[in-house]
Structures are given as structure tokens and as C-alpha cells.
């Protein structure tokens, strides 16, 4: 497929890896965070870490919307779906996400709740139009990529006079999470993590542009390279970060220039701004409460807000206290450092956010990484 296959060439990937190895200063350690779960997935799936020299380390960040959704919000959605008047429309990714005590939407559906998987918010609107007797609630989650489609649904519902449509809004903001990670050592008493640069998200940046990252250069002397999702995009972006470090530069650069501009998608931004406003604070699974990190519906669109329409009460639930996601997400620890990893906690029975989706750090390590650990360990034994 055009615009995909060209960026998956294994030979080129190894050649770029050779350039990275040649330019990596052996006296230095490089630690870069890929914010986005999609990058984590690409890095794991294509074994890109194996191509990198030992002193170039990738830290898997929190950019996986399913992973950072707090259990309490999943519980709330399940409660809502149990309301006999409600049809809950949701993206497929959310069906298996565990809430408290092993509950999930898929189990609630099996028990009789009216839950429909949809591909697009437009499908949820269609259901509301076809079933005026049902209260259709769209379970809206995601970063800046999925927010404009939710805003569009609200606008359509209003234009078509739908009184039986609302959304349960859980949209979160990428720059706020990056800030929380950079400030974590200061605010949370967490160990300082030396992140020397970020692989910036691809499609979030297609919406918000590259400008919102400028502040991280000014305030934190950070480096951000907005990167495409394909393996060669990732390799080139790592090389760009490494060159910035070597040259003592801190800058926002754009590798994904074929789809991302400095300004981003203005129409989408205006739409989101019209429908949504900032929440004072929002809980992120694994990272805790982050100020101004999520959106809710503006007063003007209050009738489309499921939280208000159904007077939903917040449910607070917490992860297993042994879960290390918080420290893994800021790069202070690695999945294998968690004593629950692979024993109590697996993708079938996730105990924490990083195991929930294949884009999470622990799940990626479970699926692809542990074999590498084993191979390295045996290679180490053979060498000694």
C-alpha cells in the first residue's frame, strides 16, 4: 500500500540503524521517550530496539488512551450501561478493559446490557436516529485524534434535534501529560528520570500541530521530534533526536512532515474548542491526577453530556498497590522490575494500566520483549 510499504523496508531500517550506531557516542547514554502507544507498538512489533545500540534506550510513554483511563471511569460506564433505558456505544478497544473486580463491558453485555461496538461516532448517531426510544450514550475516549469526531457527533446531534444522544466524555490532552512527566520528579517525589528527548505523536500532531511542543524546549530544554508511525519513520526520528543531543541542540523537529504542519488542523481545533472546555483536573491511570489534562462539554452543550444527563456519580477505584505503572510511565522503572509482571499480571488478567492494551509498555514487553531479555541473558552467559 502506498505511503505504508515504503516505510517498512527492513534493509533501509538496518542501514539507518548502522548510521545511528556510527553516530552514537559510546561514552554517552541516550534515553528517549516515545509518548505514543502506537510508537510503542511499532517499536515492539518490528523489533526496533534490537536494531539500536545498547546505549540508546527507548522509554515507553503513557500515550495509550485505553491504558490511562482510570478504572473508576470504566466502572461508571458499566453502571451506565446497566440502566435499562441506555444503549452504550463504544469503540471496540474498550470492550475488554477491566474495571473493578474483573468487570468489563464485554461481561456486562453478556449479562444483558445494551452495548454496541461502533467504528465511528457517526455510527452512534445513526443508532440514536433509528432508535428514538433508546438513550444512546457514546463512550468517548482518546487523545486529540478522537476528540474532533466526538465534537462532530455532538454538533450533528444538535443539528438533527436528537434528544436521545449524549456522550460520556473522557478525552485527554497530550501536552498536559508530557508536562506531568517532565514535572513528575519535582511534584511527586519520584526519582529524576533523564529523558533527553521525545518522539512526538504522529496523528495527535496532525490535529494540534507542532507548535504546542515549543514550550517544552523553552521551559525544560527538551527535544521533540514528531514522528510518523512506520518503522522507518521511527528510526529516522531516533536519529534526529540523537543528532540533537550530539550537537547540543534542543528543538522541535518534524519528521512526519507529510501529514503534520506547525499549525495542525485548524478546522478540527476550532470544532473541539466550540464543543469542549478544560476540566480543572482529571485522573490518569498510572500517573494520578493531572491538572488541565482533559476535556468536558461546554455549558452550551450540557444536554449532550451524559455525566449531567444521568447525574452520574464519580467512582473511585485503585490499582493493585504493587503495580509499578506510574514509575514505568515516566521511565524510572521497566516492566520486568514489577513483581506482578507475567505472574499475576498478564494481558488476560491485567493488574495495571500498562498491561491493558497492546500499546501499553507492559503488554508490549509481555508480547515481544521478554524473549529478547531471555536471548540477551543467554547470549550474555555464552559470552562470559
Amino acid at each position, binding site marked *: *500500500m*502506498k*505511503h*505504508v510499504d*515504503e*516505510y517498512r523496508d527492513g534493509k*533501509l531500517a538496518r*542501514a*539507518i540503524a*548502522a*548510521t545511528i550506531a*556510527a553516530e552514537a557516542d559510546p561514552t554517552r547514554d541516550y534515553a528517549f521517550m516515545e509518548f*505514543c*502507544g*502506537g510508537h510503542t*507498538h511499532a517499536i515492539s512489533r518490528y523489533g526496533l530496539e534490537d536494531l539500536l545500540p545498547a546505549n540508546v534506550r527507548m522509554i515507553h510513554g503513557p*500515550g*495509550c*488512551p*485505553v491504558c490511562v483511563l482510570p478504572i473508576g471511569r470504566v466502572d461508571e460506564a458499566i453502571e451506565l450501561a446497566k440502566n435499562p433505558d441506555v444503549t452504550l456505544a463504544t*469503540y471496540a*478497544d474498550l470492550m475488554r478493559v477491566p474495571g473493578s473486580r474483573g468487570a468489563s463491558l464485554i461481561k456486562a453485555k453478556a449479562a444483558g446490557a445494551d452495548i454496541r461496538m461502533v*467504528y*465511528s*461516532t*457517526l*455510527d452512534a448517531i445513526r443508532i440514536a436516529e433509528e432508535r428514538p426510544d433508546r438513550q444512546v450514550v457514546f463512550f468517548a475516549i*482518546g*487523545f486529540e*485524534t*478522537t476528540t*474532533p*469526531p466526538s465534537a*462532530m457527533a455532538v454538533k450533528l446531534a444538535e443539528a438533527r434535534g436528537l434528544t436521545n444522544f449524549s456522550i460520556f466524555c473522557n478525552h485527554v490532552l497530550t501536552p498536559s501529560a508530557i508536562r506531568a512527566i517532565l514535572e513528575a520528579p519535582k511534584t511527586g517525589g519520584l526519582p529524576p528520570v533523564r529523558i533527553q528527548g521525545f518522539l512526538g*505523536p*504522529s*496523528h*495527535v500532531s*496532525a*490535529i494540534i500541530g507542532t507548535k504546542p511542543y515549543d514550550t517544552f524546549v523553552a521551559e525544560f530544554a527538551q527535544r521533540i521530534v514528531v514522528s*510518523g*508511525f512506520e518503522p*522507518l*519513520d521511527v*528510526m*529516522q526520528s531516533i*536519529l534526529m533526536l540523537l543528532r540533537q543531543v550530539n550537537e547540543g541542540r534542543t528543538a522541535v523537529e518534524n*519528521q512526519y*512532515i*507529510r*501529514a*503534520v504542519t506547525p499549525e495542525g*488542523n485548524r*478546522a*478540527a481545533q476550532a*470544532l473541539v474548542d466550540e464543543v469542549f472546555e478544560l476540566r480543572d483536573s482529571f485522573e490518569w491511570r498510572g500517573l494520578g491526577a493531572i491538572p488541565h489534562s482533559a476535556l468536558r462539554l461546554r455549558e452550551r452543550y450540557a444536554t449532550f453530556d451524559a455525566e449531567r444527563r444521568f447525574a452520574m456519580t464519580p467512582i473511585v477505584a485503585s490499582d493493585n498497590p504493587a503495580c509499578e505503572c506510574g514509575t514505568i510511565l515516566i521511565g524510572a522503572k521497566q516492566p520486568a522490575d514489577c513483581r506482578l509482571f507475567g505472574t499475576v499480571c498478564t494481558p488476560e488478567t491485567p493488574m495495571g494500566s500498562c498491561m491493558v*492494551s497492546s*500499546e501499553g509498555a507492559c503488554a508490549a514487553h509481555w508480547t515481544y520483549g521478554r524473549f529478547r531479555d531471555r536471548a540477551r541473558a543467554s547470549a550474555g552467559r555464552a559470552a562470559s
Partner: protein
Amino acid sequence: MCLAIPAQVREILPDGMARVGLDGVVKEISTALVGDLAVGDYVIVHVGFALSKIDAVEAERTLALLAEAAGAPAEAMA
């Protein structure tokens, strides 16, 4: 779940919709977020919406840069 994929516009439909080819599958998507498109354009599609247009010129430039990144050590050795 922020995975989004390039798709080629096959047909412009009324009401801000378009028919696109996605890895052999034909889908109807909303083009409301990207404005005017022409048949043959490539767009990034996510949850049924086109998020941005792919700039063919910048794509070519990126491929050239990739080749350069891959070739750099050989040049250095020569």
C-alpha cells in the same frame, strides 16, 4: 488506538463524505475535518474521519531523507 492509516480517495460523496480505499477495503468516511479533497488524494483515516491530507511532495522528500540517513555511514567511510 491512535493508529490511523493512509487511504486513497475513490469517490467524493455528498454531505462531506467520501469513499476511500483502505488496504483493499472500501469504506465511507467523513471528510468534514479536512475540507476539499479530490479523487486520488491520500488522507490519514482514523475512526471514520479523515484527519489530514498526505502531502505527496513532502512524502517524496521524506523518502529522500530516509535514503540519505541510510547511506550516511557508507559515505563517511569512502
